[in-house]
């Protein structure tokens, strides 16, 4: 095992894919000589040449649409959107073509590609650099949506995404890029469609993904002082989604809090909470609760700590899981906004 950053693991995954598969092309804005603004493609152009790793015009719809054509010609594009909110110009290409071509053509044409998106906040970024945009992609049939929370998963899930026969939106939590972890490369962790229990516990299940996973783990540690033994499940792949591992955990613990950094309304956290409730109703001792970002545009850097799910907010929410078997008074006021 070696200690490395997630950025390094992602870089290694791209390099190994370029080495092992001639069809793989890596491109986007500043990914060539510069190595990407986060250095995820650092050294790839020098090592593999500017035909395999190259800069493009500054046009996100163009980048993704170009990738569609390359995939049609039999190549395996891996494109970088520089930041979450900068991917929005490409949304029409993603939603109308990338996601649908296989289905529109009854499987005669498919466009396997990876769209890498550095996403979410916690890095003090100015506006348009910190969006949690996963719900847009997860809501779009035909896309797989993946978000790693560990160094080993970053490598393994990216390799799997590049090999996958379907297009994958690969969401990289920016705030975890330079967090270190133990990994042995080439790592191969659990495949797509499998959630993983990151911390075993008996009293309640925290379900989290991407940037929220380390916060959930921290909250679980802090909860010991309150006398709660919390389980933490890392969803890993939003699509395909692993209902089984999560439902098994909640049936064991009887309580569940879903944590996502994105604004909560109509988000992936809401979907998870609904699915848990449908499957675990008779095992639940309390309603499934959510901790999410606030339903506001991503705030300015000096205010983001108020927006982001924190250990305290998670523990406050865990405290509302009806440990005394009494209803939450917040839900008893008929007709109120609450």
């Amino acid at each position, binding site marked *: 095992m070696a200690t490395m950053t997630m950025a390094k693991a992602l870089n290694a995954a791209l390099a190994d894919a370029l080495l092992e598969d001639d069809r793989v092309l890596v491109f986007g804005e500043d990914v060539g000589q510069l190595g990407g603004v986060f250095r995820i493609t650092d050294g790839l152009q020098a090592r593999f040449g500017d035909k395999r790793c190259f800069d493009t015009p500054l*046009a996100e719809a163009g980048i993704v649409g170009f990738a569609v054509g390359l995939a049609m010609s039999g190549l395996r594009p891996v494109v970088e959107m520089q930041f979450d909110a900068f991917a929005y110009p490409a949304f029409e290409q993603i939603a109308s073509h990338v996601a649908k071509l296989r*289905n529109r053509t009854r499987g005669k044409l498919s466009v396997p590609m990876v769209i890498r998106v550095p996403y979410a906040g916690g890095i003090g970024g100015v506006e348009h650099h910190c969006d949690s945009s996963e719900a847009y992609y997860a809501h779009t049939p035909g896309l797989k949506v993946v978000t790693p929370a560990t160094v080993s998963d970053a490598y393994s899930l990216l390799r799997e995404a590049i090999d996958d026969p379907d297009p994958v939106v690969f969401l990289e939590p920016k705030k975890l890029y330079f967090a270190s972890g133990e990994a042995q490369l080439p790592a191969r962790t659990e495949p797509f469609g499998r959630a993983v229990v990151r911390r075993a516990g008996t009293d309640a299940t925290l379900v989290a993904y991407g940037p929220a996973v380390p916060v959930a783990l921290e909250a679980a540690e802090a909860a010991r002082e309150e006398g709660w033994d919390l389980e933490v499940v890392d969803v890993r792949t939003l699509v395909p989604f692993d209902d089984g591992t999560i439902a098994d955990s909640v049936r064991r613990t009887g309580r569940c809090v879903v944590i996502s950094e994105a604004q909560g309304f109509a988000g992936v956290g809401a979907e998870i909470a609904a699915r848990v409730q449908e499957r675990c109703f008779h095992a639940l001792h309390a309603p499934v609760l959510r901790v999410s970002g606030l339903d506001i545009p991503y705030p300015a850097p000096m205010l983001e700590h108020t927006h982001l799910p924190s250990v305290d907010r998670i523990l406050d929410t865990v405290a509302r899981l009806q440990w005394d078997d009494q209803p939450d008074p917040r839900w008893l006021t008929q007709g109120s906004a609450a």
Partner: protein
Amino acid sequence: MTTTPQAVRRASPRTRRPATPAATDPAAGLLPQTEPVRLLDPDGTPLPARDDYPEPPIEALREMYRRMVVGRRFDTQATALTKQGRLAVYPSSRGQEACQVGAVLALRDDDWVFPTYRESMALVSRGIDPVEVLTLLRGDWHCGYDPAARRTAPQCTPLATQCVHAAGLAYGESYQGRDTVALAFIGDGATSEGDFHEGVNFAAVFKAPVVYFVQNNKYAISVPLSRQTAAPSLAYKGVGYGVPSEQVDGNDPVAVLAVLTRAVAHARAGHGPYLVEAHTYRMEPHTNADDATRYRDADEVEAWRDRDPVARLETYLRARGALDDAAVAEIAGQAEAYAADLRERMNAQPTVDPMSLFDHVYAEPTPQLVEQREQVRAELAAAAEGDA
């Protein structure tokens, strides 16, 4: 409202492209000629031969005529099928036969075409089964033909998005050592979309062998060209991207084929993309659901009827001795047989399978789709039991 198409003016020698661009003007070699290229007068009389656009071989023109006649008959049949309720909608390209067929004839079978929803005629002209072409509009699936086998992308409804695909496909083909050319169809309105500009720009930067073929039929549904652009003509949009461009009389079949042949040769030779604007006219409404009388008057339509591309080519071919009454009748018979076959096959009610809804969302369905598939299967079984 009346437009005065540039296509009615005669090309004159002073509008010819200079043999070598002036050293002081790097854009000179990229700009289109100031008048659309024309080799036949509207009445079919040949104009003086020109060096830059040699006339295509007479056999190619005769085949072009045949396909235009069959294509027009296909188009009127599709409109009739819509009125009979067999198609949900049909966007006609009647009047644009020279463009629809010329583009196909300028390409090899292994070249790629990126069509829009108005290119049904081009696709049948490419030899794709008309029933498969009309699958989208009949509504039993989206794309009815095999795009990989036919080297023809699904007909594209999100405007201009196919322009970038063509750039990627063409670059990918040349990257892999193949000399494939991609031709992307686009209309006048869609040149206002960002993806047109991104596509042309990507193709230029990567020297991708793409021909962008703009059929300027003067209206984007109801909105006239003057609302799309202040450019002298759409062919002037290439110069900003470093892309050589040309404009052609889109109702002159001989000129369309000559200009597109040169554009395809330019791309195939590795010189990068080429932009061609054809000045033409959609004789029918946008679709059967549109009422064109709300935005254009009968005089304008009548003026374009006088520039009919099929009659124009027929007159020319007869004058050249390449077509006689017997041949015209023979081709008309082919077109009738084609339409009859289409009519008969489209009158059969297609079978659709609700279970197939889950088959191609992903290579393998997700667990959630497997669940939903079982739910639908149970619903169908219950319904069948209720019927029994």
